[in-house]
């Protein structure tokens, strides 16, 4: 629920599009302060070439990285948010929605797509932090539910890429109930033996973490991502103490037993290819046949 504050503090909200980044534009890393060209950044999966800081990217960029040939079919884009409670704080929720929809027509805080990774099908539901803080409202819950139904019908594994400040307060209890809705729907995937991968990226907090993000058959994350239930600011204010360095990072969660592994963005596609080999749903493939493709050994991310 802390996305609003973070936006306020001037966290970059520009969406970096690989194709649109002209040469010669400079990018300064917000972690190490070093600079590089936008092109170098884009060529490096939008990670800092100096310190490997993973910049926040859009669902579309993840799809480009993950899917074979960058090709995929978007699903359920017709489902869109509305202001059904007439919620107004300092701004009307309806105004926020108009603005968000104008900046990313046809998009939402989550974008869902199906495509192939190393020739195996995968449904990916990717959250967009640049769309109202990636906050989870009714649309996020509905698109995830429909993705699960798609996976059940077509026997395709699911991956959710979480990147969210938490629940969308302007939808009040409806946003809260999306936690129950998505978790309940995931039980169906579990019963059908269809794998669900939860991939957490910076940031994954609040109700998103306390529902589907923590329910993967495998939970993994990008390096250095903020992952937690209560946001660091909330905890700090509550206990009136500074939090230790590295608290609530991916590495912290791995150490405390809540992640299976951390994966660098450049290795994501390879890793997914391997996972889809192990967790195959296509039973028609003869597992005893000699391997026709070279399966890369799984390496531990640094």
């Amino acid at each position, binding site marked *: 629920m802390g996305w609003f504050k973070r936006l306020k503090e001037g966290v970059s909200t520009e969406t970096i599009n690989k194709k649109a980044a002209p040469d010669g534009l400079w990018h300064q890393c917000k972690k190490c302060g070093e600079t590089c060209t936008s092109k170098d950044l884009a060529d490096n999966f939008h990670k800092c070439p100096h310190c490997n800081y993973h910049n926040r990217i859009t669902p579309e960029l993840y799809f480009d990285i993950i899917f074979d040939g960058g090709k995929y079919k978007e699903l359920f884009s017709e489902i869109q948010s509305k202001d059904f409670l007439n919620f107004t704080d300092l701004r009307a929720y309806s105004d926020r929605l108009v603005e968000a929809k104008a900046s990313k027509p046809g998009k939402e805080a989550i974008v869902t797509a199906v495509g192939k990774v190393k020739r195996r099908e995968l449904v990916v539901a990717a959250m967009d932090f640049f769309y109202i803080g990636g906050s989870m409202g009714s649309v996020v819950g509905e698109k995830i539910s429909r993705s699960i139904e798609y996976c059940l019908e077509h026997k395709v594994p699911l991956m959710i890429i979480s990147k969210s400040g938490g629940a969308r307060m302007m939808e009040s209890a409806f946003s809260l109930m999306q936690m129950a809705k998505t978790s*309940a729907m995931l039980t169906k995937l579990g019963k059908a033996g269809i794998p669900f991968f939860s991939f957490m990226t910076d940031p994954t907090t609040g109700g998103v973490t306390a529902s589907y993000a923590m329910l993967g058959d495998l939970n993994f994350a990008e390096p250095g991502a903020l992952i937690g239930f209560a946001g660091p600011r909330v905890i700090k204010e509550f*206990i009136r103490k500074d939090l230790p360095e590295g608290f609530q990072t991916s590495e912290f969660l791995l150490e405390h037993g809540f992640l299976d592994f951390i994966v660098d963005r450049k290795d994501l596609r390879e890793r997914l290819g391997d996972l889809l080999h192990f967790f195959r749903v296509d039973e028609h493939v003869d597992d005893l046949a000699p391997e026709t493709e070279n399966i890369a050994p799984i390496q531990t991310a640094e």
Partner: protein
Amino acid sequence: MVFLEFEKPLESLTEQLDKLKQVSEEGDIDLASTIIELEKKLVEKRKEIYSNLTGWQRVQLSRHPERPYTSYYIDQITSKFVELHGDRFIKDDKAIVGGIAKIGNQSVVILGQQKGNTTKQRQYHNFGMPNPEGYRKALRMMKIAEKFNFPVITLIDTPGAYPGMEAEERGQAEAIAKNLFEMAQLRVPVLCYVIGEGASGGALGIGVGDRVFMLENTWYSVISPESCSSILWRSWDFKEVAAESLKLTAPHMLEFGLIDEIIREPVGGAHLEPEKMAKTLKSHITKQLKELMPMDPDERIEQRISKYRKMGEFEIVGQVKE
């Protein structure tokens, strides 16, 4: 007696009444008719105030220091209660109390967040704010219920899951998520009652069930009005407005289809007649169990999941692409 801000008119009436009674008992003046008059007035005033409560006033009522808590209801509603402790991993989280008991002839597992009536008790129960161990303790009890075919009854009353460092280290998010996942597919009936505060994931962590009910003067929301005010209004001063905007009262939740029914409280709140409240709750639980126990477990689970599947409001724009 503790009077809330908006109950001030009742406080002066009550004081007057007490004085009259005292005088009447001590002296020779017959004040019976005046007393009856004043008592009537008090009842009328109470009705008037309580028929028109704002969201924030309901929030205040839900936190009334004399309000009955989970342990009180367990004590009043059940017999042969055997309290169970611990999550079998880390410790016994005192913010969650529960165990096995009888309601009539039916064995049940009943549990909930416990706040405590005195300062000491409140600290002991961590003000009803569970750590991950609390959610895991609750799940352990629910798994016992599932194994031996006892229905599960949860009583929700929490200002939220505990936002501490250790809670994060031990996986607050994972513990809550796991409960949502497991409660959705528990093979026994699950009844959830919001008896006080229903704050966010900390409440929902024991709140997924076949049927969810709210007592009349409780609230359920994604965030407390105070925190909502501080984040969206960037100030702590807008809690009343936030409480209205969040539409967090029982009537709202019923209108939205997010809960199944409202349980009426005695006029003036559950704390005025706690025994009556407990009786109402008991007969409600009994009636619900009669309906839910005979159902086929698979069908019950399917209905439970479909209920949650339907929750959400959105619009469908343009052509449906397939």
